[in-house]
């Protein structure tokens, strides 16, 4: 079942030095070690095998063994994943990590198996916030009339519209140019992406709305999984689990580095009171949370908040 010199294949759209990629590379090393050298892993980083939606499909067909994707492409496949992608559902990174490390996270990962994907673990994606070329966003009123780029996802479009801005779906590679020339006024992302896409060079206001703490997901092809013995499957699961703290450490370090670069460049960063933003999310939550299972998970996540 092994191909390309007895190696598993893994892919990621981020470059080789990105925390998610490095975590999967470490996962592969653990796999090699714990299988007594039977398994290897070839990492195809930087999107050489295609974008997340496409490689995810290929993974479900058995054409790629491992894949690290954002939650967004999974939303089009499995409704349960949508709960973790709701804006403002997690109050903090701590809340997100503790929720996804527990039974709620287990249930979401398990829901992927019917789509021929084995959900192995969640990685961090940090908090996404808005940046723009016009001025600081402190309240939703400040967003009125802004043209804000979103990924091509219904959830993002609905969120930005609920906040009163114009949601402009646009591929990521057109964003820098569009910001520079004024086609759009802003976009939203986490610290590392804001820095690595160089968007901070043109969008000089970063407002910490932290609207999304949706995680990354590390999945395996079910076809490849089914070829493994139960012992080997256990090794895969344990190695994936053990790669999570490594990833989080790499992630936190990356965030610190990116934050430093952005702050040093003189970008104006401001905090916001999330309450005013959260209030506007009620309608869109209702629009996207439609099944009893989704509601149950949402309630469980909210119950898991520090404040109760």
């Amino acid at each position, binding site marked *: 079942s092994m191909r390309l010199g007895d190696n598993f294949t893994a892919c990621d759209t981020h470059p080789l030095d990105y925390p998610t990629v490095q975590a999967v590379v470490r996962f592969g090393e653990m796999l090699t070690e714990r299988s007594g050298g039977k398994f290897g892993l070839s990492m195809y980083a930087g999107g050489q095998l295609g974008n997340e939606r496409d490689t995810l*499909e290929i993974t*479900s*067909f058995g054409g790629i063994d491992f894949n690290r994707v954002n939650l967004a492409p999974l*939303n*089009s*496949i499995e409704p349960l994943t949508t709960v973790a992608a709701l804006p403002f559902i997690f109050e903090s990174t701590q809340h997100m990590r503790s929720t996804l490390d527990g039974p709620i996270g287990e249930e979401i990962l398990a829901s992927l198996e019917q*789509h021929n994907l084995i959900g192995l673990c969640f990685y961090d994606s940090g908090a996404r916030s808005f940046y723009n070329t016009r001025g600081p966003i402190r309240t939703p009123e400040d967003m009125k*009339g802004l*043209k804000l780029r979103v990924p*091509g*996802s*219904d959830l993002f*479009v609905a969120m930005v519209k609920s906040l009163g801005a*114009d*949601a*402009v*779906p*646009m*591929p990521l590679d057109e964003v820098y140019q569009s910001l520079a020339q004024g*086609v759009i006024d802003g976009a939203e992302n986490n610290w590392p992406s804001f820095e690595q896409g160089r968007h901070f060079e043109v969008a000089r206001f970063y407002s910490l709305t932290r609207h999304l703490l949706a995680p990354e997901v590390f999945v395996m092809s079910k076809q490849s999984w089914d070829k493994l013995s139960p012992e080997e499957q256990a090794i895969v699961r344990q190695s994936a689990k053990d790669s999570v703290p490594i990833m989080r450490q790499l992630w936190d370090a990356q965030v610190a580095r990116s934050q430093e670069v952005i702050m040093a460049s003189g970008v104006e960063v401001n905090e916001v009171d999330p309450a005013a933003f959260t209030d506007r999310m009620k309608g869109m939550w209702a629009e996207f949370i439609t099944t009893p299972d989704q509601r149950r998970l949402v309630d469980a996540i909210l119950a898991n908040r520090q404040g109760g």
Partner: protein
Amino acid sequence: MQRISTMLINLAALGLIAMTAVIGWQVFGRFVLDSSPSWSEQTALLLMVWYVFFAAAAGVWERFHIRIEILEHRMQAANVRKLRIAIHALIALLSLAIAVYGGMLAWLVHDNVIPSLGLSRSWAYVPLMLAGALMVLFSLGRIHKRWTEKT
């Protein structure tokens, strides 16, 4: 065959015109109305896949696909005929793969949705299935034409 091929080109031309309108509307919505249509990008992409594969299928009949003809220039007429039959047999075989796997793709992803359109992802792969089948038909048609012509 010629009628089917012409119909495909006409449909494809309409697709191109529709795509122009969609992107024009996208610019107008964003710049003039301050309200970007959320469906335009995915609609335009879907249109492009459909019309490109339809026109590409017609291209098998009209034989406008780029190819290298060095070998033919060095052959005698009788052999050129055999070679062209062989080429179209290969095209038929490869097109069959496009049709079959295109159909399988459409089936496998029928539960997935295209974001911002709410349509099934199958719509992105159905054109490959159809175009693949049409390419098989057209290449067989070409073989038939070569086969029956006088030498």
